[in-house]
């Protein structure tokens, strides 16, 4: 196997892909959004419970391959309890890493979280997979921006 692939399919991704965390719908979400990648059929729905600027709770349901599901699972673990600004900063830095954009520096208290996303950045050598790895984050952003339930975002 090539090195890139071993990087990509690390135990942490397999673990989250096969046993996703926070994998359920919220009973009373304040926001939600569907993410769909029509190219490969991957789907996630993100549920948020916001208290002002604070992410009180977050969950998801979805189907797709390990990378998109692991990414969603990791995201929910990481952003729970954070502020929207912090989540946004983490997304921007993650997005830059997987798309080969300019590196974005994060405040030191977010560095550990960014570190946890590191295994997913192996997708950068698989352009067709980048959209799957960021699908949950795009859906999260859409849920926040729409300010409502049931927004839809497509990534291709």
């Amino acid at each position, binding site marked *: *196997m090539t090195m890139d*692939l071993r990087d990509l*399919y690390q135990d942490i991704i*397999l673990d989250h892909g096969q046993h996703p965390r926070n994998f359920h719908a919220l009973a009373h979400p304040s926001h939600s959004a569907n993410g769909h990648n029509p190219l*490969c059929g991957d789907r996630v729905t993100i549920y948020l419970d916001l208290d002002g600027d604070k992410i009180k709770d977050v969950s998801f349901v979805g189907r797709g*391959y*390990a990378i998109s599901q692991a990414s969603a699972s990791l995201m929910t673990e990481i952003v729970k309890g954070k502020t929207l600004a912090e989540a946004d900063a983490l997304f921007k830095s993650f997005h830059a890493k997987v798309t080969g954009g300019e590196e974005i520096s994060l405040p030191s208290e977010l560095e550990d979280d960014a570190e946890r996303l590191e295994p997913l950045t192996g997708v950068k050598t698989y352009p067709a997979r980048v959209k799957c790895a960021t699908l949950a984050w795009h859906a999260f952003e859409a849920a926040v921006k729409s300010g409502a339930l049931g927004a839809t975002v497509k990534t291709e």
Partner: protein
Amino acid sequence: MSFDPQALRRDFPIFANNPGLVYLDSAASAQKPAAVIDGVSNFYRTDYANIHRGVYRLSAKSTELYENARERVRKFLNAKHFGEIVFVRGATEGINLVAYSWGGAFLKPGDEVLLTELEHHANIVPWQILRDRIGFKIVAAPIDATGGLDLAKLEALISPRTKLVAVTQLANATGAMVPVETIARLAHAKGAKILVDGCQAAPRLAVDVQALDCDFYVFSGHKIYGPTGIGVLYAKKAILDAMPPFQGGGDMILNVTFEKTEFQEPPVRFEAGTPDISGAIGLAMALDYVDAIGRDAILAHEEALTGYGVDIVSRLPGVRLVGAGQHRLGILSLEVEGIHPHDVATLLDGHKVAVRAGHHCAQPLLDKLGLGATTRASFGVYNDERDIDAFAAAVKAAQRTFKTVTR
């Protein structure tokens, strides 16, 4: 001649340029032999000019090569008349042409178009677009429990309202063969026409449109070792003669005034604008290549590989072969337990094994089978048993990575 995939592989420069490549995606598109690549390039270097209407020698030569390519396709399909061969962009455009031109002129509200559950989107969506304009009904003949077409149910669904039966000859998502000759008889007995989607069949077996007695036959050049951007629509002469144009423009006219236009005879009536000249010529070269190997030899090879593949894949623990009825050819679609097909394909790519993962443009079929996506391996003349062994080994490695099968 004994069939030697290893020797044939040397005809395909892609393999020299990608050492170790295990190419199992010919159903999506076949690789190109040097004869086609160089032939197209040489045509541009030595004989190229726009066709028809040109009075100078180079244009006459280019026209001759283009029309010779049409004759080459006629022979390949054993069509009766040269004029029954229309060059199109591919099977998709061929079906859209039939829907727009023939369907638009002859289908009425209350009519039915009978498809099957095995169809590629290219043989579904054009009919839906037309249905929404005209208001006829689309009916889909079901598959049986083994994944093959249920011929008895199809027969029962052909009624006096049925104006067209449009079926694939070989299902691209599963490899299920369809007895189109029988279906043609059944359709004609009820006064319906039949369109055969030969995309996957034409590269794998001899096609004789007169023996099949089909009214329309389409295939794509790129799946039969030819260039992209070129394909063929065959239609019986009497049907083509009665069909209005598809697109309007240059070449397809006899006389144009602002008041009215007189159209050319087929096939030119259906080839508006400058066609894919080099594509048609390249396709003719690809057909030469295929016929030099021999279509019976290719069929025997594809059957042998399919048999071997079924055998190997059925013995892989945690792998389920998707059913394709009684007769499967050239294509294996499978589920690897606990691993999403996109993960399988990504991991296989790490072993230089190129396969396709997804719905294979046949969502209604996968829905019916209760699957969102599958992993698909498909064969060409350059594949041999070692490719299938490499595929099986890579699937096992993926299972080890995912720890779904530990042995």
